[in-house]
């Protein structure tokens, strides 16, 4: 029995592509080795990584709320010409990734194509290898009519880029893309809620408390980066609001429907979020998003 406890925190595996940036070669894994003796029940533990929902999942949950499509919410694809620094490009790559998913789940084909073009431009600017970038975008264009194919291709692209970034010590880029994608998903959600009363959407925003905790770990890891440093005070304010939101669950019961063979984890949750908390979250998300896209 080894008496080694390894906690490998991190692996940024979510969104698309990256950029050439010296500061990308920051340490990608935090490894702590504790030689203290463990009890027999304890085992070598490797936390493979933290996880955040991809834009695909976020926009899927928005779609499930039956909110109508709002074409004023996504960042305009024409803004792509405004971004030049590697940090801005990476952040807005995440933003456009979320916007693409948002448009695609609502079958907004023309908008989807515009976002593809924006992503293609950023891909070129970031010098993404052909097999990780443009090739995939070509496949998306060829399959634009097929929703499932699009999701599959986007997902493959994420995974391919994750691997690429990790192999090339560019985790900071991945972190920036994660931040951009998450913020854009939240921006769409809080704005949709501004125009309607939708408990499901409200719950969805509150439930991002889970993702947020992981996101803050990403922020903390890269706080020395100027782009992250500029956003950090806003994220810390957001953290304080989310800390006040409570989500509790009843005991889990796993039930399998004998007819449909669908297995469900049956448990209710109780979510507590006040109008003031929602307002604070909305304001902070709008501020952060404005800094990213402007």
């Amino acid at each position, binding site marked *: 029995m080894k008496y080694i406890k390894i906690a490998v925190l991190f692996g940024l595996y979510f969104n698309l592509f990256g950029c050439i940036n010296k500061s990308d070669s920051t340490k990608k894994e935090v490894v702590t080795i504790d030689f203290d003796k463990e009890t027999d029940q304890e085992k*070598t533990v*490797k936390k493979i990584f933290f996880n955040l929902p991809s834009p695909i999942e976020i926009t899927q949950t928005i779609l499930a709320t039956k909110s109508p499509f709002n074409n004023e919410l996504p960042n305009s694809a024409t803004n792509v010409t405004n971004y030049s620094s590697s940090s801005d490009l990476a952040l807005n790559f995440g933003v456009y990734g979320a916007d693409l998913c948002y448009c695609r789940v609502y079958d907004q084909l023309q908008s989807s194509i515009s976002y593809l073009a924006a992503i293609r431009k950023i891909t070129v600017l970031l010098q993404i290898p052909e097999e990780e970038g443009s090739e995939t975008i070509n496949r998306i264009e060829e399959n634009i009519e097929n929703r499932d194919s699009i999701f*599959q291709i986007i997902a493959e692209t994420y995974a391919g880029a994750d*691997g690429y970034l990790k192999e090339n010590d560019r985790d900071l880029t991945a972190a920036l893309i994660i931040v951009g994608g998450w913020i854009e998903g939240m921006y769409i959600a809080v704005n949709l809620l501004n125009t309607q009363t939708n408990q499901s959407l409200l*719950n969805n925003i509150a439930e991002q408390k889970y993702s947020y905790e992981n996101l803050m770990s990403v922020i903390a890891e890269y706080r020395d980066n100027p782009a992250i440093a500029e956003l950090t005070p806003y994220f810390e304010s957001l953290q304080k609001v989310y800390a006040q939101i409570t989500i509790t*669950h009843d005991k889990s019961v796993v039930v399998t429907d004998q007819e449909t063979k669908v*297995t469900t*984890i049956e448990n209710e949750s109780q979510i507590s979020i006040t109008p003031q908390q929602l307002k604070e979250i909305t304001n902070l998300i709008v501020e952060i998003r404005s800094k990213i896209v402007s």
Partner: protein
Amino acid sequence: MKTIRTLILLFGFIAGIQTIGLSQCKTFTKNDCKPKLDPYIYNGQLNSAVLNEGDFAELMLTFYSNQDYRIVVCAADELGKVVFRLVDTEGQVVFTNEDHGMIDYWDFRTKSTQQLVIEVSVPESTKEGELAKSGCVSILVGFLDNQ
């Protein structure tokens, strides 16, 4: 000076090994694991790592209410059958493949959005004196487009 050069070479060697390992894991995941998600849509999160015999890994994931999910825990053949369990935030085990013939996937939906921890245990070799084996383990999540 010689010591420094040795250290640099050692770090270079380790870095090279890591890169090769990650690259192989990526290929393994794409070719051997991703097809097991079908017909579920891959969520694009590449959760893979090289684990050794006796290792225990965990990954916390968020699952959204009323979505249909498939989790695939896919391990390189040399590691043997790995055990995976899903545990809720209260520590209650909601699934273990030990009760289902060591199957390498599970399909389910959740009534409410929640976080679940996926725990993966790689069995230890029972043969004494044998070198510890290592291999890639990937945890993939797919969902159905319910629209």
